[in-house]
């Protein structure tokens, strides 16, 4: 079947079987491999993308279900050459090591800070507690979220 999505602001369309996952569709059919798959069963959050600005796990969703919707992937977070405040904060605070979990954190945190521009520490912890990272021990990820909210304010 033909599936059309608005990905990072651009209409994109490709053929895919009805059973194809959104994660595989983005990575394979549309050639956007920035969205990563860490578990393919909805637990790690690495595959998180924004569907109409809300975070969803693209490994738990069929591409067909997303037909006609707006999808933002990690590739669409930076504007032109400039990193988004969330991306910049992760870089400044050493909030990533291997970078495999990072796209999922970036999309999750982007949506979170939209809704909670001045989060408390507890809200931050809660916001990132659905994403697994095996490298960082989360210390600098939490710092990065705080820093991103500062950057967004200024």
């Amino acid at each position, binding site marked *: 079947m033909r599936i059309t999505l608005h990905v990072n602001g651009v209409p994109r369309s490709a053929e895919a079987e009805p059973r194809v996952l959104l994660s595989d569709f983005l990575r394979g059919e549309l050639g956007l491999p920035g969205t990563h798959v*860490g578990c393919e069963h909805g637990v790690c959050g690495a595959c998180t993308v924004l569907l109409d600005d809300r975070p969803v796990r693209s490994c738990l969703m069929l591409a067909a279900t997303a037909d006609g919707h707006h999808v933002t992937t990690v590739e669409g977070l930076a504007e032109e050459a400039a990193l988004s405040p969330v991306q910049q904060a992760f870089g400044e605070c050493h909030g990533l090591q*291997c970078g495999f979990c990072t796209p999922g954190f970036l999309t999750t945190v982007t949506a979170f800070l939209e809704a909670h521009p001045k989060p408390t520490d507890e809200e931050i912890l809660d916001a990132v507690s659905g994403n697994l990272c095996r490298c960082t021990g989360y*210390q*600098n990820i939490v710092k990065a979220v705080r820093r991103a909210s500062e950057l967004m304010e200024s």
Partner: protein
Amino acid sequence: MTDVALSRKEDHRLLTGRGRFLDDLGRGALCAAFVRSPHAHARIRDIDVAGALAVEGLVAVYTWEDLPAGVRDPLPLLIPHPSLTHGRTPYALAREFVRHVGEPVAMVIAADRYLAEDAAARIDVDYEVLRPVVGIETAAAAEHLVHADVPGNLGARLEQSVGDAAAAIAAAPHRLAFRLDIERSASMPLEGKGVYARWDGEDLRVYSSTQTTTSVRMALSAKLGVPLPHIEVIAPDVGGGFGVKIMHPWPEEVLVPWAAMTLGREVKWAEDRREHFISSAHERAQIHHVEVGFDDDGRVLGLDVRILHDHGAYTPYGIILPIVTSTQLLGPYKIPSYHATVDSLYTNAVIVTPYRGAGRPQGVFCAERTMDKIAAHLDLDRAVVRRRNFIEPDEFPYDHGLTFQDGRPLIYDSGDYPQSLEKIKALIGWDGFAARREAAAAEGRRIGIGLGCYVEGTGVGPYEGAHVQVVSNGHVYVATGLTSQGQGHQTVLAQVAAAELGIGTEQITVTTGDTRRFGYSVGTFASRAAVMSGNAVAVAAGKVKEKAIALAAKVLGADPGSLECAGGEVRARDGSAAIGLGTLAVLSNPLRYSFDEESARAGQFAGVPDPDTPPLEGEPGLEATGYYSPIRSTFASGMHAAVVECDPETAEITVLDYAVVHDCGRMINPQLVEGQVHGGVAQGIAGALYERMAYDEHGQLLNASFMDFLMPYATEVPAIDTDHLETPSPLNPLGVKGAGEAGVIPVSAVIASAIEDAEGFAIDAMPISPSQLHHLRGAAR
């Protein structure tokens, strides 16, 4: 916005989704899927592939029978050892027997992964189920065998000894004997393994999510019969390793390139999470029987440890892990008489190879539990007992009289353990804790404090190398053979080269783990990258600097001693003359043909040639290769402490405070070192409180998903307080040790110590869950 504020050179591409991991490559390649054994132990009676043939898009199905010589032979035993008398390795695809759930039985190649899995699901394997051997004690009892020709399930018996431990213990004023257990866990990187291969009829290019491309390359050359110069192996961005990716060649790492060669098509396989759980290596499971003799002050006089090590179904990585446990168990302590035996046992479970810490967490658990038990027995402060047993700062180099995992003597290079102890006590508030405990108790809360020390052999040899090249625009390219899995080597190695050449890191590009760029290497493991490749880059960059200065001296007619390398040029210290590194790179390569202004400066009619000297002296190019090979390992060290709270009702265990003092010698990049410590501690907390491989009595792994294997989220990892100490290693020019594994090593010991302190009864097995703690409370009552 610029990238200047980013911590690492790696970050921009990883933050913008432009990293390239294994499964991001080879779009359109054929995909492999594997039929894996559902049984822990069985004989294969028949494999019926007929059902798969109907799947549209199927390209090929292979079983062991189909494999040619080389590929059909058992996989290599990577690290043989005289004690490993009964080493056994698996076949790439099972031949007659399967010995753990997940062992590959057949490989399917199809147009895409969906179709490959469809076909794999239709292959019928007829198994005769055999009795599985599950768990260390079952293995030791040996009622059933994993390998019919390995009596007692005993792969290796290893002994380590200094002095006469039995006599020392017998003669000691105090003696204790106890048993300590650690369960299976795993590296569990967020990206699984993967392989992608292309063959053009003569040359094979393999991408693998591996910790060692050079060794995979040699293994493939041997297995596939392709001459080394015709194989390239490249590690793209790798999503974490933590040890599991140093094991090689994995069955898939041989089979996928072989299929690419056989089919003349690109073939790719990316492991899924369930496959990772049931076929990639685990670690940690050991039982330890400890006997210790000590004096009235708590000084250890003799220590005897009998270790039962579960190495799983095969021993491709040899017995490195129990060797590490039995040597690193000594930690920062002077143990005059020591004896250790290891029985390394076969079980019908996934193979066991190093996971961050690699045998050290178990050894440290033994030593630290021993210190705590001595303190309890003598009613002494736990820190005091440790202090009395320490190697003193003036006793380095300290020779333990044993052989380490690199085959070299176990001699510590440097350290200052008493100072670390003072720092960790201050950081956690050790001395004031009694009051804090009482205050908590008054509120009905149960808290305890724990401490653990470790020494970690890092930077093991044999060697690493690096190539440094300045090109005509002055940019510097550095290549080293070892691989990266997120540690930030591109940043750290650029810093080393930058310091040597007097330029900024933005002028430097580093490549790791690409045999096209550098073919000699050992790999990334044992916290060795900064020590080995760091020093190799320093050597190579030093040679480039020398070359640049010699050439500049000639061009400028100056005395080399009056010149220095700084600001991207070679200049006279008095400021009278300067020449850019880019220009020197051009001049270092005399040309007949020119294609831009820069190269015209090196043309044969440029300048006034000296008719009496040849145009080229030495080798062309402003580049050099350097190697670093240490006489033995460096020894990093550290101490951790924690305060935990145990809920009196639910037995829930919460880590309130966690503190780390860490000494990895000179730090090239403190922020990245701290990142390594954080990640290690998180894995340590995971191993202490959450993660275990739950095998049932049939050898089925019951928790083979992230739903059931409790990898910590941010909410489970406490805030980590760190402090550093730098005792430079005298063994290498940079004075560095290694930081990769430090964070994980003592955590189980520390948490056990703290829970024990809170509860008042012994904690001798880790990990510990609330329900286990609840049971222990019942038993203690």
